[in-house]
């Protein structure tokens, strides 16, 4: 597989406060994500993983260090250019879905395309396509309140894909979902991965982490372990489920 680096950080840091109260939320993180790769970042709450995701997506500014996305230095962009980048190159998925309650599923998915300057007609057509892709073509006219948790998150994922982003950043995407809905979202991520979408997911859900190509463990703002999820195991499903040989 050709692995071209899409997203890269060097010495990325974010600190809050000063002196005695200084908190190193993200502490000199070096990260490289290849195009088409799914990377999961795991760690206990407060380890800095959400802050890292916000830095990668330009929602917060780093205190120090570099962020490069497809060769462009994100950390050097003006506010205006950064806002443009967030709208067109990055898709966000949040734990609490962040859908607009008063808008239908289709209208929610249309929003980013309209903000990026597409015509209403093109935005609508694209939203319908995206909802088909996430398996919700028949729910386009539903308000979020009429959808299940798993369906709402799938609408949010469709919205994240709206401007064909370089990378999708997901913050605890299954944090509010039950087991069956988690499976729905994992199936969808798997399909996106197969289609070549680059994904960075921060999570404490080991199910999500286990489906990534690479798993990074984070503690106290820094990366402490990395696992490539390739390779087999010595166990078998039968033994695992308690079937005697």
């Amino acid at each position, binding site marked *: 597989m050709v692995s071209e680096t899409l997203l890269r950080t060097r010495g990325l840091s974010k600190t809050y406060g000063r002196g005695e109260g200084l908190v190193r939320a993200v502490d000199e993180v070096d990260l490289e994500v290849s195009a088409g790769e799914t990377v999961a970042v795991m760690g*206990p709450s407060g380890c800095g993983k959400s802050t890292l995701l916000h830095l990668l997506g330009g929602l917060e500014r780093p205190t120090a260090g570099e962020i490069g996305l497809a060769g462009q230095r994100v950390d050097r962009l003006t506010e205006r250019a950064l806002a443009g980048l967030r709208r067109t190159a990055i898709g966000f998925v949040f734990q609490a879905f962040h859908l607009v309650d008063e808008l239908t599923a289709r209208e929610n998915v249309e929003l980013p395309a309209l903000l990026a300057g597409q015509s209403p007609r093109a935005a609508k057509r694209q939203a319908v396509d995206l909802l088909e892709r996430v398996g919700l073509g028949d729910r386009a006219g539903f308000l979020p309140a009429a959808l299940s948790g798993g369906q709402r998150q799938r609408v949010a994922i469709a919205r994240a894909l709206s401007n064909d982003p370089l990378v999708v950043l997901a913050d605890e995407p299954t944090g509010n979902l039950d*087991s*069956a809905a988690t*499976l729905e979202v*994992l*199936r969808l991520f*798997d399909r996106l991965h197969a289609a070549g979408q680059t994904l960075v997911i921060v999570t404490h859900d*080991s*199910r999500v*982490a*286990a*489906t990534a190509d690479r*798993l990074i463990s984070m503690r106290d703002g820094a990366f402490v*372990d990395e*696992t490539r*999820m390739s*390779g*087999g*195991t*010595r*166990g*078998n*499903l*039968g*033994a*695992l*489920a*308690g*079937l*005697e040989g």
Partner: protein
Amino acid sequence: MQDVVLAMLAKEPSHGYELRARLRDALGPVGEAMNAGQIYVTLGRLEKAGLVSAEREPGLPDRPDRKVYAVTAAGQQRLAGWLTDVSWPGPASAEFHLKLAAAAAGGLADPLGIVDAQRRELLRLLRDTQRAAMAEPEGSSAGLLLEGVVLRLQADLRWLEACEQHWAARKREDRW
């Protein structure tokens, strides 16, 4: 396994291959590694113990796969006991716990390294199980079994996290 086969026979007397098909349906991908002959070995043991009776169909050779098996009265009694039995096989926590303690105490290995290796193995098992679960159609009973395996692996991974925190703290305090 004996109790399971007995329970599957309770509905009606059956051939071994019918039982095998029922097991396959219920287990899905989990049952893939099961040996085809295993059901006949189990039926043979149950017959010897007087828990099932086996009737050869007239005119057919005396082979296990030609017999129709049925639950006996003793078998019914055993089944009733099995259905109300609440014993629950736990994971092998004690052995792993002692492995870490012994590794630290004897200076045999770094407990944190052992935890890391174990976590990798469990994550891969979780990935494989998750993949099998994602491939099951919605509402399949084999999917439900896979969910049980997934939930247990998740619990084990959380315990490994606790092990890691404990031994990392020990390491910092230099108390191995």
